[in-house]
């Protein structure tokens, strides 16, 4: 973005103002996340920077909140983490399975009522979460699944499938159907064709849809708030209660771990996106 030499002064000034504005917005976006790191190592019980921390005194930093997170008495985080992972993994599997199969059907040019069906399938993403929460709660209460893991997994499958449907249909939109026809003409049955030909080609889309579904489930709090009992507490639920009641630095330790997790997911998602674009021959 270097300016050409002949740029007039007032455009030159405008250009630097523009860069400055962009820098401010980037700072606004990313800086809040970084305030959590140092504070999670606070040796004291406060959620603000102590004098010692400002002077970089090593005694002002400690790992006590991380220890509290793992070994603390009566601490809820262990159970919450276990529940969160179990629920998210099963919800992801369910979403990927249902979503991929549905996307295959939707991408077929023979699909009747495509617009209406697509709208129905992605509706959980469009409807505000609070409404989805109320509706899903009514269903689960009637089905006797409120306050069970099964109920929460089903709820998260509902919320996760639209992402899988969208990413997989997007991947399939650049899909060359002659390869499956070639496979069929060589005597392969449909299941074999799918496993050996279609799936490897659309796998990046499937996985990135799965990542979306995983994050949706792992981070979801509104629906779980309606559904969860004491036994089904998840990490977001614990953070929600913690933030409402006693704001302890342990939450920051947990938050730091979550940021690290999301960084890992971000890197995976980016690598997948690039791989998918390469496979589909899209050059940007």
């Amino acid at each position: 973005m270097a300016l050409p030499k002949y740029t007039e002064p007032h455009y030159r000034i405008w250009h630097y103002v523009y860069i400055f504005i962009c820098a401010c917005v980037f700072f606004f976006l990313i800086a809040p996340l970084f305030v959590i790191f140092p504070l999670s190592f606070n040796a004291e019980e406060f959620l603000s920077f102590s004098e010692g921390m400002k002077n970089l005194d090593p005694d002002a930093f400690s790992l006590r909140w991380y220890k509290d997170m793992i070994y603390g008495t009566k601490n809820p985080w262990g159970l919450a983490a276990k529940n969160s992972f179990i629920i998210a993994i099963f919800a992801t599997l369910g979403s990927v399975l249902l979503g991929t199969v549905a996307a295959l059907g939707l991408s077929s040019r023979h699909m009747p009522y495509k617009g209406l069906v697509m709208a129905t399938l992605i509706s959980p993403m469009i409807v505000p979460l609070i409404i989805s929460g109320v509706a899903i709660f009514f269903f689960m209460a009637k089905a006797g699944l409120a306050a069970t893991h099964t109920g929460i997994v089903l709820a998260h499958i509902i919320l996760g499938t639209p992402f899988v449907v969208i990413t997989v249909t997007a991947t399939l939109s650049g899909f060359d159907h002659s390869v499956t026809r070639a496979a069929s003409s060589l005597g392969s049955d449909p299941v074999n064709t799918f496993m050996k030909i279609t799936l490897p080609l659309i796998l990046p889309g499937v996985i990135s849809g799965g990542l979306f579904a995983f994050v949706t489930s792992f981070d979801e709090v509104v629906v779980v708030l309606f559904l969860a009992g004491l036994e089904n507490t998840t990490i977001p639920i614990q953070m929600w209660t913690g933030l409402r009641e006693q704001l302890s630095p342990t939450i920051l330790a947990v938050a730091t771990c979550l940021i690290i997790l999301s960084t890992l997911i971000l890197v995976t998602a980016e690598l997948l996106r690039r791989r998918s674009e390469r496979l589909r021959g899209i050059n940007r």
Partner: protein
Amino acid sequence: MSSETKQILTTDGIPLEVSLKKAERKNKIKAFLLVAPLLLFLLITYIFPIGDMLMRSVDDKMVTEMLPKTFKSMEKWDGNEMPPEEVFESFYLDFQKLVEEKRDGKLSTQLNYTKNGFKSILKKLRRKAKNFEEGNYKEQIMDVHKRWANVEYWRAIKRRAPAYTSSKYLKGMDMYKNEEGKIVNVEEDRRIHRILWLRTLEIAFFVTLLCFLMAYPIAHLLATLPMKYSNLLMICVLLPFWTSLLVRTASWMILLQQQGVVNDFFVMIGLVPDDNRPEMMYNKTGTYVAMTQILLPFMVLPLYSVMKTISPSLMRAGKSLGGTPFVTFWKVYFPLTIPGIGAGCLLVFILAIGYYITPALVGGASGTLISNQIAFHMKSTLDWSFASAMGLMLLAGVLAIYWIYNKLVGIDNIKLG
């Protein structure tokens, strides 16, 4: 003769047209069968329950079922004078049955919604009714409390006879049906819901505007920078996007608290005195700041994906034809980004209008939105039919926005990264 020459047969001797149609139908069924599991799953667990919300929101069978005899005998009563003895007798019988089944408490809650003052007189009636003599219930009931002799209360009961009601929707807009059956506003100082609707719209609108103003320049920068820089800066957008909502809300709670980093900074540069730090959380400011940052990536990504497709040569062409950079931008570049602006604004507005977690944590009393009210009625007052009614009103609003958007821009023009 001519039709015979047109008819082409397949090797099986079936006309080609028929055979093709058959194959087509088979393909249709195949495609539909693939979609069917998810469609069925969503219909049962999601779409029908939304219909169930609709039923609950208008359902008023509870009272209808609790006082069956009363309402039957009330059919003949015109509601002008005190009801006849028959009504009193059937009311007494219905009520005694409810007391036996220990359901009279529910009745009193329900009737109290319609008219204040039922709770105490029903309690009194329950006590006195034990010693009632057979016959002449009218006088005996009217003796229990003077309100039982007031025709207004009997009219209030009659109003609960229909099995369906619009009262929850009216309540959601701070209106009610008065004794004459006219729809009127509640008193000025009790109009809480309208304030909430307006505030929700206001916050959603300004958050969308703020997001747009912030996202446009950085999306433009990301789209025009060379790949190796833009990839790095893209992380600044994507990392918050993938980070837990609660983590981001927590970080804002730390930043905005009175002893927080933002206030420390303001004190340091001398903007505010140390002993009078402004309250930036638990009010609208907190909601605005946190929601804007949290929803910003949803605006940047669609804008970026649209801007990425705009060829830089267009700007050069505009400039070479004599346009100043500003004119070229406004006449050439900006119109091309409108699909991205539309998609981003729609996304952010819809997300903001149904926001719950962040306003509940940093919003305090003056920064809460309509979703907080829905959650409150779901979890605290347990008035689920009212929560359903409010939810459906919100849903209707959201669908209306989609409809308008579709008319103006076309929903197919949405690009989500």
